[in-house]
């Protein structure tokens, strides 16, 4: 059982890392602030989600697992807000120049 859970963790966390890598590659390769914003928010949100799902089986208790999920939800909320704020600022800058 525990081997199976470890396997789930390894697979999920590795998949999450791939998305983080994708986000970073996008950050470096995409041409401007707005497209980079896409790369960072979308890829990192799902990357963090997969890492969290992967870590839940390793949590000592149900409470710890739920705490991990709370972390992800809060990051999603923050990411949704921050991406809009940055996008607006970038758009305004683009308008004025």
């Amino acid at each position, binding site marked *: 059982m525990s081997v199976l859970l470890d396997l789930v963790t390894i697979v999920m966390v590795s998949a999450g890392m791939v*998305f983080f890598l994708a986000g970073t*590659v996008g950050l470096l390769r*995409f041409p*401007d602030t707005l497209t980079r914003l896409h790369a960072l928010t*979308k890829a990192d949100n799902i990357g963090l989600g997969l890492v969290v799902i992967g870590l839940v089986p390793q949590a000592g208790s149900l*409470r710890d697992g739920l705490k991990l999920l*709370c972390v992800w939800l809060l990051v999603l909320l923050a990411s949704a807000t921050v991406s809009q704020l940055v996008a607006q600022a970038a758009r305004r800058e683009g308008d004025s120049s």
Partner: protein
Amino acid sequence: MAPGQNGDRRAAIVRTGLLFGLWTILAGTGVADLLVGTVVAALAARVSLNLLSPGPHRVDPATAARLSLRFLLQSVLAGLDVARRAFDPRLPLRPGFIVYPTAAPPGLFRSAFTAFTSLLPGTVPAGPAPARGADAGGIVYHCLDVDAPVAAQLAAEETALAGVIRDE
């Protein structure tokens, strides 16, 4: 008068319950934890009612659960979409702005909608459209691919979300 008060009370109970649930996750379920938790949850619920009055909005839990699943799927697609573009040596991007015309007035629903769609594939909301002109009232979206059927997708999301948060 009476229905409004009922709605207020129901909102207060629901929010206190949710915040209390959060407290038990964070602080534990010992006797002292629970006692303090009721006070803290009531306090936080009061803050919540001050900041977000129950108003005419109602959240339907069953549809909300379905929407969360849809949302999970969409955010996986969003991640895959970005990853595909980032790793593709040709860098297939056609970035640009589109204006999504929405009938939603500024408020909770519209804010929830923009927050929700900021996590979907290919779109990031970039603020309201200029107040004057043909696009007035719309939301500006920045898209990775302006040729994709973005507006249709957004309209579908708006319908889905409207089933969860609706005016009574």
